[in-house]
């Protein structure tokens, strides 16, 4: 993995990394990818991928109303709070910014 590839993945992962960090990351990730490349030795034609170990699919529960978290509790850990809402950066109009 070169540094440009690492920068692209960091953008996808929403991680702000310094150029120095990106450089170290490129080296370490390349070493790990080289190690996992051993999987290519194996013939897996016709093998069903296994996403989880359980023999269950689509578990449903009864649709019964139950108590939910009170607003004050749900907002208690909010980094920024505006009344009964989470304060967040503007998504569309910059004038709506409530991030700080």
């Amino acid at each position, binding site marked *: *993995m070169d540094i440009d590839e*690492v920068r692209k*993945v*960091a*953008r*996808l*992962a*929403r*991680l*702000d*990394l310094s150029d120095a*960090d990106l450089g170290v*990351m490129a080296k*370490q*990730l390349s*070493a*790990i*990818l080289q*190690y*996992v490349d*051993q*999987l*290519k030795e*194996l013939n*897996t034609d016709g*093998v*069903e*991928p*296994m*996403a*989880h*170990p*359980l023999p*269950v699919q689509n*578990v449903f*529960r009864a649709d019964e109303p139950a108590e939910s*978290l009170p607003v004050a*509790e*749900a907002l*208690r*850990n*909010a*980094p*920024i709070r505006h009344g009964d809402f*989470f304060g*967040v*950066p*503007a*998504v569309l109009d*910059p004038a709506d910014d409530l*991030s*700080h």
Partner: protein
Amino acid sequence: MIEKTAGELLALQASGSASALAITDAFLTAIRDRDERVKAYMHVDEAAARAQAQAVDDRRKKGEPLGPLAGVPIAIKDVLCTKGIPTTCSSKILQHFVPPYDAHVITKLKDAGAILIGKTNMDEFAMGSSTENSAYFTTRNPWDLERIPGGSSGGSAAAVAACEAAISIGSDTGGSIRQPASLCGIVGIKPTYGRVSRYGLIAFASSLDQIGPFTHDVSDAALLMEVIAGHDPRDSTSIDQPVPAYSKTLEQPVKGLKIGVPKEFFGEGLDPEVEAAIRNGLKEYQKQGATLVDVSLPHSPYAVAVYYLVATAEASSNLARYDGMHYGHRTSVKGDLVSTYSKSRGEGFGKEVQRRIMLGTYALSSGYKDAYYLKALKVRRLIKNDFDEAFKKCDVVMGPTAPTAAFKRGEKTDNPLAMYLSDIYTISCNLAGIAGMSIPCGFTKSNLPIGLQILAGPFEEEKMLRIARMHERATDWHTRRPKL
């Protein structure tokens, strides 16, 4: 007092020889004396612990029914949500997080009367094998303070080994209970996937994570499993199967026991002292009439590679929730939405967590998903098939839990891959979703504990515990405590 097992502490209370408060005070004193050196705990609330103990004593005095763990101090890995008690996952991103609800396992422990004495240190987001990835401090191995306790549940393992809690709870995604149990000389169980509800467990890799106990001996482990196992509709992967009374059948040896010994677990990289202790453990079973059967897990050499694709892919998705919007760290640098996400995550996550998010994001990204993620899922199937074949020939599979005893602090921190390889024997169990545990089976010449790993088929915890007890009954490794 502090060196006693949960079973012994329950007996002391039943006979009136000690109160829950006296027991709790003894452990709080031990924490005050020892934790400066061991550094197992993230958070201890003495007043809350004493109030819980007082409540148990009051119930006993009034003749009210008491739970199966009444008055037993327990430490909790800081990955489980505890209502009103800080829960950090040993990450800066959750530094000030106080959960508004209890994890299922916490509710079960409270109902059982256990005394929640504190939250323990861990590798950040359970990513690591030494507890050196904690954003706060490194936990020490109670047997040698210059060495690591293992990880990621190193704080919970060290708390029990150092007698700063009678029992504790950890989580195991690739060995994070069994490996520190082995390195700290105690018992640790990774239950079958789906046996214990993950509700309220901060997710790392959802198809691999399981919660399990750390204890001094097998009967405490059976007792704790009875409390935490069972169906919970809030976790759709929790299986609705009755929980056997593990402690009732514990003393029944398994007749005609067949132990599968995979040659892949005794190859290059296994420390000779560890191997000798494991072979001795196997001999102990032979003395009791067990037969050793050669089995093969031909795909197990690929387990670490599969794990570091599957676990990181799942983690990159699970950890997307930490975006600084609803809870957790938000950057103070003003900017648009995406830069606020990216800066908050860049500042809040430690290096190893970032590395794994990056690897997982890459493995799932367009153009690479088939070559990495899907390929890994296919090999995961082959690893599970290996176990299915092996269990046709034996009751359980045994081998070392870890390739070496506890290593020194800083020894592997610069080489992520070397650190990953310390989980080489534990990872395949999580990938296959089967049950596994580590029990003490010896010490190195420099007095470091060694663990024997027992792997059993899905939902075979009852048999696994009985088999573990067969070894324990004939040996005294589990009675040793470090000098602190």
